[in-house]
């Protein structure tokens, strides 16, 4: 089985306030990479192809994916501000070229928080999808996958025919740390660079971010010294009890 793992480079969401955020592999995509590695380590996958879209500056995050153990890495060279639908259309061309049995990716990127690309890609390809998964097992000689999904109402189990698009939630696994020798080895691995033109895809983003702003800050309120004082505040000041 061949697995394609699309991933995005995002500002480190765990960088402290004020710190210049370095870029990292989107944490949900890192979980997808980890799961692909575990599937390969159990002997159920033969090749893992990592793919990202961006200018050469994202090569750093491609090295991280290679250091984790991805077999082969591709970068689709495009430095435009793409929207999820544009990304999905580019990935459709890439998936058509690579013909994997499974596309495994994060459920959302933690910078944009859109949670769209996997589902759009599945729709464009006409493939089954299993979103927000916390568990995956292969059935019937890897022709189907049983997935546990995290939904608002609790856990749900579905079976999807392969090939399929699967998007990962937080509790699927704990990604491994990249070892120094792994990182050294990754420096020597080639990164294949493709253009949208080479993939035969022309896309224009249909959504544009006009501006961004910080939301109004919630003012800190008052400290209370006791449960009694809290009860008085909740009843008389907030009138919520």
């Amino acid at each position, binding site marked *: 089985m061949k697995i394609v793992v699309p991933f995005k480079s995002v*500002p480190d*969401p765990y960088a402290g306030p004020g710190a210049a955020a370095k870029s990292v592999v989107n944490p949900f995509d890192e979980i997808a990479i980890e799961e692909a590695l575990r599937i390969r380590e159990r002997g159920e996958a033969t090749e893992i192809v990592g793919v990202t879209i961006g200018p050469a500056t994202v090569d750093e995050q491609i090295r991280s994916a290679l250091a984790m153990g991805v077999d082969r890495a591709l970068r689709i060279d495009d430095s435009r501000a793409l929207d*999820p*639908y544009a990304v*999905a259309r580019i990935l459709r061309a890439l998936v058509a070229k690579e013909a994997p049995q499974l596309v495994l990716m994060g459920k*959302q990127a*933690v*910078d*944009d*928080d*859109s*949670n*769209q690309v*996997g*589902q*759009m890609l*599945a*729709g464009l390809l006409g493939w*089954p*999808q299993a*979103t*927000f998964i*916390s568990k995956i097992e292969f059935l019937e000689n890897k022709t189907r996958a*049983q997935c546990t999904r*995290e*939904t*608002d*109402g*609790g*856990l*749900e*189990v*579905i079976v*999807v*025919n392969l090939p399929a698009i699967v998007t990962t*939630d937080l*509790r699927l696994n704990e990604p491994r740390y990249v070892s120094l020798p792994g990182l050294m080895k990754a420096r020597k691995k080639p990164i294949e660079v493709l253009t949208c033109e080479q993939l035969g895809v022309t896309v224009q983003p*249909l*959504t*544009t*971010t*006009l*501006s961004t702003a*910080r*939301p109004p800050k919630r*003012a*800190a*309120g*008052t*400290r*209370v*010294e006791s*449960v009694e004082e*809290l*009860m008085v*505040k*909740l009843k008389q000041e*907030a009138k*919520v*009890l």
Partner: protein
Amino acid sequence: MAATLVLIEHDRQQVKRPSLHAITLARQLGGEYALLVLGHGLDAIAASLVSCGASAVIVADDAALAEPLADRYAAVIAQAAQKYGAKTLIGSSSTFSKDILPRAAALLDAPMVTDVLALEEVNGERAYRRPTSAGSMLATVKIEGDRCVLTARATAFEAPAADAAPCPIERFDFDPASLPNGMQFISREQRASDRPDLTEARVVVSGGRPLQDPETFERLVGGLADALGGAVGATRAAVDAGMAPNDYQVGQTGKVVAPELYIAMGISGAIQHLAGIKDSRIIVAINKDPDAPIFQMATYGLVGDLHQLVPQLIEAVRRG
């Protein structure tokens, strides 16, 4: 014909209240809107929707739609949007909509905006405000073309009044045999609870890692929630530690809540958690660390040991 279709979510028994809030976004957009419900055995649910001011309640009712499988649901939704000439498709921000609507958007060749908080106008053109980066930024987004798919943050839009003259219920006919067949429903976790739904409750009590174990979590967080008639939430850390089920998680990747009263117990205030609570009207924080970031945004902060304070609070609430 309807300019906008609003996808309504239900649990087979009744409509999910937050999904009605998306109707308010449809009203703000202007033009006629119809409600779209998919499932099997929908007569009572459809009947409960006729007074929401829509031009029609469109019902796709078939055994093939008994479970919300994304491939089938997206196909039927796209067919309905085409048949009714709807340019805009709206759902509320839930795992149901987030699973199905992006797929429908791709089938309709339309862009999508997730988690709309408000409509804006920029240089005479419509734009949409939405949160990014765990709510630490607000983006104003414009769409090219006349078609789009939106999800509305239920906490950002009021529930619509349900006092309009009843609208017709229309059956949407489609060919079940033509639907995709690559996904199969196996099971859903069933957990009986007398507590209100987390995203609909007037009061939410949440706990973090210091609650230690499921028993303590239930006794203190559950106990206070029950005394207040509220719902129970949890941080990612508490869920990861096995103290609470996954769907109790509040925050960037869990649920977004905006109750009248949110009580955070033993929660330090990671940005990912704060993203899910900051529109609550009153936030109470109880934490033994006086420097915990949660105190920066809490309406009332109480520093101390929650194992001592929370039983006192439960007792005080019970006394009234």
